[in-house]
């Protein structure tokens, strides 16, 4: 099925995850969270969430632990850069098996 009956004839996207397509496929490095260093995980309370605040794609949830939606995460690394406890590290996608990638 094509886009013939789509309600617009221009490029028009509403805000929300995925308005630019499955941008997760652009990723070269994947953010991996170490819950033993993550502030809300350690304190078991809503705190910090710098990763959630800074993620330009809004793909990190404000939950304990914060969840990263790899379908749309472009792997920009801003979360890892901003995390005050260095709980997020960027890992080369090549380190993950094809099987892992399929699960995204």
């Amino acid at each position, binding site marked *: 099925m094509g*886009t013939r009956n789509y309600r617009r004839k*221009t*490029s028009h996207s509403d805000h929300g995850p995925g308005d630019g397509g499955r941008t997760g496929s652009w990723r070269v490095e994947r953010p991996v969270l170490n819950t033993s260093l993550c502030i809300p995980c350690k304190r078991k309370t809503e705190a910090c969430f710098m990763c959630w605040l800074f993620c330009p794609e809004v793909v990190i949830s404000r939950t304990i632990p914060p969840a990263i939606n790899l379908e749309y995460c472009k792997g920009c690394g801003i979360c890892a850069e901003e995390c005050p406890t260095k709980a997020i590290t960027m890992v080369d996608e090549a380190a993950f098996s094809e099987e892992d990638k399929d699960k995204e």
Partner: protein
Amino acid sequence: MHIIENGNVAAALGVKLCRANVIAAYPITPQTPLTEKLSEYVESGEMKAEYIPVESEHSALAVCIAASSAGARSFTATSANGLLYMHEQVQWAAGARLPIVMCVVNRAVGAPWNVWNDQQDSISQRDTGWIQMYCSDHQQIIDSVIKAYWLAEKVSIPIMVCYDGYILSHTYMPFDAPDQEQVDAFLPPFKPDYALNTEKPANLNTVTLPDVRMDVRGELAHGYMEIRYLLQEEMRAALAVAAEAEKRFADIFGRGGDPYIEPYLCDDAEYIAVGLGSLTYQLRVCVDALRKEGLKVGVMGVRFYRPFPDVAIANALKGKKGVIVFEKALSYGYEGALVSDLKSALYEHLAGTGDLPMVQNFIAGIGGRDIRTEDLTQTLRAATKSRVAKEPVWIGLKL
């Protein structure tokens, strides 16, 4: 009301009558008096609009793109290098499907610097996805501006209303300036499908991938190619909508004709001269003279250049002995752009029928070189006798 004014004022009056909400323009000869007149209307309160002075033509169209995206009826105007400087935004306005109307007051492009009339500026924008209308007199300028807003908003495609610099822009002629009530009856307020709205935010024309994608609602949204195909499809369909505009206009204003072409003494003609804009009215004088010599000649103006009215043109030229295309522009390295398009239409609709006319191409008035009626008449006379040359011939060249 019949008034005597110049072509730029005819355009400005049309814009005022259409109640444009936003005007952004950068002055350039010979368009300047048009924008000056509009700024006078706004400054005096005669016209309720935002007049936004800008530092360049690129910004002028960028302002119109933003204003149109916010649901405002927008207008700009330019000439020559101003239009070329706009080029990136010209393409953007079409892809964004914004019904902006722009007057292009035709002028030669640099280098070398030249402020006089030819049509290389708008012809060079042929492939940008804008509708192009060409005017032959002041009445057509004001009427085309009014029709253009209706058509642009109906099909969501921007329109260039093109008219010859000086020859039309700076000469005075009588024309009928319609009443506001008539224009209001013809042209309803602009109601876009979506206008920028803080309650319903959206990203417009962001990176659009080569393939289709699921949008946030889970509906399959267009990729770049689908959006561009729709522009082509709806541009072609705009031909029928232009006919609707012409009929609607005639019903309310009591004037109009063929929406695509303007034939003069073509019915019994064996040879037809073809052109864009005021040159076709000058050619009428040549045709009148040659008719007295017994030559069966006519002239056909092309009013719509994009979308190209291929069927109307092929029907009008079917079975003629010769078609002589006069142009004030060309596609360097080949021939006039109009003659190429015209031959393509003839081939498509008449090849193999035995009704295919011989086609010749003449280039005239480049950079404002005076087009003498005697030269045009002599050229037309010679073209009816035999094929003058395979390559386009430049009239009045002094090499």
